[in-house]
């Protein structure tokens, strides 16, 4: 009877009160549980990533986060734009112009007869241009960024792929274009996929000294019943055709780098202005964080392309279980992968430190120090330098190292290729975890979330 009376008078807000009491009880239980766990777990030896990350005190840089006190995020953006990215593009243009004149000299010499010296000069010019470009490869935000996909960066114009499209390359299609002799037409690249032009295609044209083509025997290029086919070309025809093709593509690369610079520079399309005024009247970025998110997104190149595709795949560490995987190296014809990889790391280092390692500048290291994450700033600064040094010390080509690699998952620093891989991974692990975590930097949001 009393129970019935109680139930009858039991109203909804009584029920709510019961729920609240339950909630607080659960809370205090959780807090006690957590405290007990803390106590217990301090006695448990947990594996920390730091244990497999060798730190080397000798790896030091002059940039030690000294700007932390004066740090502002706008200063960081300005530093990235004015001291790192834009000068990087300007330097790349200087080198691609040299490349164009060198290839022009090679073409001229080839038409006159012997061109061995000019070819070597053109090849060296390509290497210099490739290195200059590789330093900027990570800067795929703004006009360089890819168009389309699920996370288009603000101000993207897809210009990077017009200049260098690796790993999207297709030597067979390059040969086909050489054969069809259509590369001299105005706006030739407008109607082509990016895998037939750019620095990667030029590498093939300048460094591949075989006069065979890269297509299968059944490909239309090798179909002798066609009006135009490869077998019609003599060796000298092929060399000459490829030289002219390289020259046409070099001009196009120059034009695209100029477009990129125009898109960035004040007085041009002024992406730099929009970038550096993010959150302060920018036409593209409503907040500084949005601009930094685009930069961070671009920095993941170090993980997905440098570590996974340029290093691990050709070595057979990742995504390749064939007997030999060295064919996946980035620079298959010039055998310049190691140097290009080094340039990537230097590019990453510059954007992290805000400039060259031996120059004090405002960079992400200062950002980290300024928010109280000095340990992380120092660890990443050191690990980047270690990775750069490790690669510098590596002997021979990456192709050779991958070729002689026995195939394991690099649980130790032997052989040298593994040491490089592990040093790069030490950087990317921090980048993907604590770095983006504490700076709340992440991929641009695709959709709503409630952080579940």
């Amino acid at each position, binding site marked *: 009877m009393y129970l019935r009376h109680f139930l009858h008078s039991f109203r909804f807000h009584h029920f709510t009160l019961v729920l*609240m009491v339950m909630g607080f009880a659960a*809370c205090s239980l959780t807090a006690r549980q957590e405290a007990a766990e803390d106590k217990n777990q301090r006695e448990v030896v947990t594996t920390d990533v730091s244990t497999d990350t060798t730190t080397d005190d000798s790896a030091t840089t002059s940039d030690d986060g000294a700007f932390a006190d004066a740090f502002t995020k706008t200063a960081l953006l300005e530093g990235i734009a004015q001291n790192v990215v834009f000068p990087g593009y300007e330097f790349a243009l200087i080198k691609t112009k040299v490349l164009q004149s060198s290839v022009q000299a090679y073409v001229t010499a080839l038409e006159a007869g012997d061109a061995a010296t000019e070819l070597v000069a053109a090849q060296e010019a390509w290497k210099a241009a490739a290195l200059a470009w590789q330093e900027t490869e990570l800067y795929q935000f703004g006009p360089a960024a890819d168009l389309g996909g699920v996370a288009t960066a603000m101000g993207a114009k897809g210009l990077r792929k017009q200049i260098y499209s690796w790993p999207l390359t297709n030597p067979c299609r390059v040969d086909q274009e050489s054969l069809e002799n259509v590369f001299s037409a105005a706006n030739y690249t407008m109607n082509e996929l990016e895998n037939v032009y750019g620095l990667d295609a030029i590498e093939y044209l300048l460094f591949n000294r075989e006069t065979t083509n890269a297509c299968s025997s059944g490909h239309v290029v090798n179909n002798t019943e066609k009006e135009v086919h490869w077998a019609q070309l003599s060796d000298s025809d092929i060399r000459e055709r490829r030289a002219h093709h390289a020259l046409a593509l070099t001009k196009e690369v120059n034009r695209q780098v100029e477009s990129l610079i125009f898109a960035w520079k004040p007085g041009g399309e002024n992406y730099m202005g929009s970038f550096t005024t993010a959150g*302060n009247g920018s036409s593209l970025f409503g907040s500084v964080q949005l601009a930094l998110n685009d930069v961070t997104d671009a920095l993941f190149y170090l993980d997905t392309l440098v570590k996974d595709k340029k290093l691990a795949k050709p070595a057979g560490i990742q995504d390749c279980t064939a007997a030999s995987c060295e064919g996946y190296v980035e620079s298959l014809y010039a055998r310049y992968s190691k140097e290009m990889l080094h340039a990537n790391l230097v590019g990453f280092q510059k954007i992290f430190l805000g400039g060259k390692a031996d120059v004090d500048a405002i960079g992400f290291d200062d950002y980290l120090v300024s928010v109280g994450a000095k340990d992380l700033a120092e660890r990443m600064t050191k690990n980047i330098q270690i990775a750069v040094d490790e690669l510098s010390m590596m002997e021979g080509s990456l192709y050779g190292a991958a070729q002689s690699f026995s195939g394991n998952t690099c649980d130790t620093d032997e052989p040298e290729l593994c040491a490089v891989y592990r040093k790069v991974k030490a950087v990317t692990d921090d980048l*993907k975890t604590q770095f983006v975590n*504490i700076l709340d930097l992440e991929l641009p949001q695709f959709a709503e979330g409630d952080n579940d």
Partner: protein
Amino acid sequence: MWTQTKSLSLEVDGAGPAVFRILFGLLGFWSALRFILNDWIERFFVVPTFFFKYQGFEWVTAWSQTGMYIHFGLIALSALLVTLGLFYRVSVVVFFLSFTYVEFIDVTNYLNHYYFISLVSFLMIFMPLNRCFSLDAWFKPSRGSGHVPLWVLNLLRFQVGCVYLYAGVAKMGADWLQYAQPLNIWLSPKTDMPLVGPWMDSLWLHYGMSWMGCFFDTTIVFWLLWKRSRPFAYGVVVFFHLFTGYLFNIGLFPVIMMASATIFFDPSWPRRLLGSSVPGFSLSAPLRPGHFWGLHGFGKVLILGYCLVQLLLPLRTFTYDGNVLWHEAGMRWSWRVMVRQKTASLTYKVTLPKIGRTTLVSPSKYLTRHQEREISTQPDLILQLAHHIARDFEAKGHESVEVRAEVTASLNGRRAQVLVDPTIDLAKEEDGFGPKSWVLPAPTDPPLQLNRKVARHSL
């Protein structure tokens, strides 16, 4: 204002619940429209080649691109019909099934407010919310008594109350209260926001918002139920959700909760607001007060059973040892909203005994970046992908494939720590509701605290 019908079910004015129906339908329509207009259908259901399944719902798969657009069109249409109160019962059943189906396609798309929408639409199937302000009632006036059973009102209040209460309970941890994390991380970079920006990197604000957020979530239901505090409490609800919606990318969640909180008003509030003189806004019969359930027999058992499940499900995490933010067991279906900042780096190590090779596999080989980001921090999903990778290699002719995960995670700013035991062959581990022995203990050190007024966009 209460009454008693022939079925002895006590009834209340159906105006408030009817407005709840209208708002709910509109939000459902808006939600479906967002997917269509923002290309999310392609991103989340067309581009991915692998989907993470819920146990028991492995049969749920994505349709073709056209099929998915038709599916979302169906969600939008049924939501619109729910709003209008036209063919209400059929519409709400279709909405519940079609919306929940989408939710079950891929675990990486789980959001608490999607779960909330599914639960409420399920409850609405059994609720006569078309008796008021509906085309059904307009076409067939005999249906439009204007009353709904009391349990309808209370069950909806209970459901909304659970969201708030357990969201509050989820915040009662050391990271949230003692270190103001993850708000400290999330708010610090927002110094360039208009008006509030200058305070966003202030530690007092992070602590204040953490404690106030916890207090708000835990007690707001009581303040909304108490007549005297209700107007002020709803004002706080609106401010809280508008502010959090302004600060964070949480989509429709704030609007959904602001709309849902109207269920705590006196059920006659729309009539009072619009006036009984307006046609269709006056009740045809007087009402009188009743007690909590207003329902007898089997219906009461079902409702009590439902409530019990809703009460116990979020508490299941307390049956697992360790920190739920780390091992994530009991994280879903528990209203743990906005409680952790977690990022991870994940690589699989696949051993192929047949050819004597071990190779690393990046999750990106199988997943979109959104999926990779989501699963890297969630052990059960890491396990699912490990199984998929094993099956994939076996399909290519390899036997006895072993899959291990190398994953380090950073929780609330801490230095990354190993999340999953890298020695365990996950291909041999089964998923289940029990604790996962291969998930390593949570970090014991306190989270990093961003403790300086920095990161200003200008001096």
